[in-house]
């Protein structure tokens, strides 16, 4: 299930005492990191009285699978939230892939005057906090009559977010330069080169962008919080927060069941696409 790392940093096998110390630390840190996840699942299967019982037990005395069904019911329109979230995820992924592939191609495979300077501007826009643009965008969408609709949550993705362009460009730059030149000599138009030469070679990179954008939309909270008004339009993130703020701090078994449900798809996707995912994350840190 887990891919192997290419190589450890130090090829020499460590001496026995070092080995034991490092393994002990790995086990300790590993337990600390995995414990909250296991605790979430454990709590989600307990009856209410067991969540309140001390001392706590990792394995519930009675395993209550129907907590999940009950939590879904208690959250209100769970099915609707899931459909809304998936709709937004699909629209955002489609918009992002199309627009950032185009922009990344323009920033990497075509030589034009001032290109790198414009790219610096693009990088600089990543520094602008959403908090700054949030209010004017809200006002703009209000004038357009978009508040309370899904439009503010997916239309912007068709205008190439800086981060995704940056990421795709990093991948495009790794391709040999003469590939495009050869295609140009063969009479391909630039769009054909992008579609027939570059994109087929960059499938893993596209997958990274798809995954990141999916995760981003799945997790997004502030956007839906500001732009959605009707509870039927809520996304899962907003629905969960709404449920949490209404139940008060008591039904932890339901809250944990709902949190588990929200987390599971993301973890499943990660485990299925681990190699691509890790490569993508690593690339984001490598700034040229």
């Amino acid at each position, binding site marked *: 299930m*887990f891919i192997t*790392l290419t190589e*450890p*940093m*130090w*090829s020499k096998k*460590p001496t026995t005492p*070092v*080995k034991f110390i*490092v393994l002990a630390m*790995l086990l300790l*840190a590993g337990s600390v*990191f*995995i414990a909250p*996840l296991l605790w*979430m699942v454990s709590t989600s299967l307990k009856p209410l009285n067991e969540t309140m019982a001390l*001392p*706590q037990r990792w394995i519930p005395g009675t395993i209550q699978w129907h907590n999940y069904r009950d939590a879904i019911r208690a959250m209100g329109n769970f099915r609707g939230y899931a459909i809304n979230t998936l709709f937004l995820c699909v629209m955002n992924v489609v918009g992002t892939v199309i627009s950032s592939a185009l*922009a990344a*191609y*323009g*920033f990497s495979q*075509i*030589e034009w*005057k001032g290109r790198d300077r414009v790219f610096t*501007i*693009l990088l600089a826009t990543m*520094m602008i*906090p*959403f*908090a*700054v*643009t*949030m*209010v004017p965008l809200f*006002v*703009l969408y209000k004038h357009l009559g978009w508040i309370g609709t899904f439009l503010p949550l997916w239309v*912007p993705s068709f*205008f190439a*977010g800086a981060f995704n*362009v940056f990421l795709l460009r990093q991948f495009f730059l790794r391709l040999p330069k003469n590939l495009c030149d050869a295609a140009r000599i063969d009479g391909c138009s630039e769009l054909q080169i*992008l579609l027939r030469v570059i994109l087929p070679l960059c499938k893993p990179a596209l997958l990274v962008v798809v995954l990141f954008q999916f995760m981003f939309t799945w*997790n997004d*909270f*502030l956007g839906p919080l500001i732009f959605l008004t009707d509870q039927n339009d809520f996304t899962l*993130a907003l629905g*969960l927060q709404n449920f*949490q703020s209404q139940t008060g*701090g008591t039904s*932890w078994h339901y*809250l*944990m069941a709902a*949190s588990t449900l929200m*987390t599971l798809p*993301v*973890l499943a996707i990660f485990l299925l696409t681990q190699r691509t995912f890790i490569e993508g*994350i*690593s690339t984001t*840190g*490598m700034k040229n």
Partner: protein
Amino acid sequence: MNTAEKRNLAIGLGFISPWIVGFLVLCVYPVVCAAWYSLCDYSALSPALFTGGQNYIELARDGIFWKALYNTVFFAALAIPAGLLASLFLALLLSFNLPGRAFFRAVFFLPSLVPMISLAVLWQWMLNGELGLVNTLLRPVLYLINHLSGLELAAPNWLLDARYAKCGLVFTSLWGAGSAMVIYLAAFQDVPRQYYESAELDGAGFWRKTWHISLPLISPVIYFNTIMALIGSIQVFAVPYVMTKGGDGPERSLLFVSTYLFQNAFNYSNMGYACAIGLVLFAFTLLLSLLAMKLARRHVYYTDRTNVE
């Protein structure tokens, strides 16, 4: 410019046109607008009324804003170094040639994927004063310390105690150290093996290899990550918002600049004031990044060119 160059320019601009439109409509326009609103009394219901620097003067006198700024700086000052140390430490542990590395890497990385809202709800439960797992683990440790030293330390009620609420939030953010760890692992992979081999020939051990080879060579990555963490921590919003059920915590201990901005914009409909807060936040981000850039010039080592200065 000859014809070919003109043609390339046109094609290039054509390809990046989605970004250009986005840049103008979703970036330039809102920032200019925010700057204008910040000079106005504006509630989004009635037209903006120019009031000059009134919002900024008010902001400078607003104790709640200073509290929010203090909280934000306090949180960033704890979370960024702690996150950096934790992720580097984990990456170093995984750099030994030991079995199970891929497994542990996945274990450390998984928590960083948990959606923010689930994360907030989960950690609210983890940090529960009476029933939380954190305190369950802490109590025996405190018992031992109290027993040995005669102190009377009690497990805090993290998120409901103004003194500890931000520490609770730092724990939450540390749980996501895995994503930075993966980046550092990849950076370590890029360090040429020969460096270690020749250092080993010279008798260098773990610490010297780490301190004199690995860390200097990955310093650009550390720098980039720190800036990203800085931008992230300054904007911290969703997790405390959910943990406090849309509030700002006991004695406003979880009121952050973004929270205060949100409250002004959407609870009090004070858009002009909110924009002023946003611009101050922006200026603050720029200032800190510039500072980091200055520091980087001295401490970051780039292999492809000689160090500046």
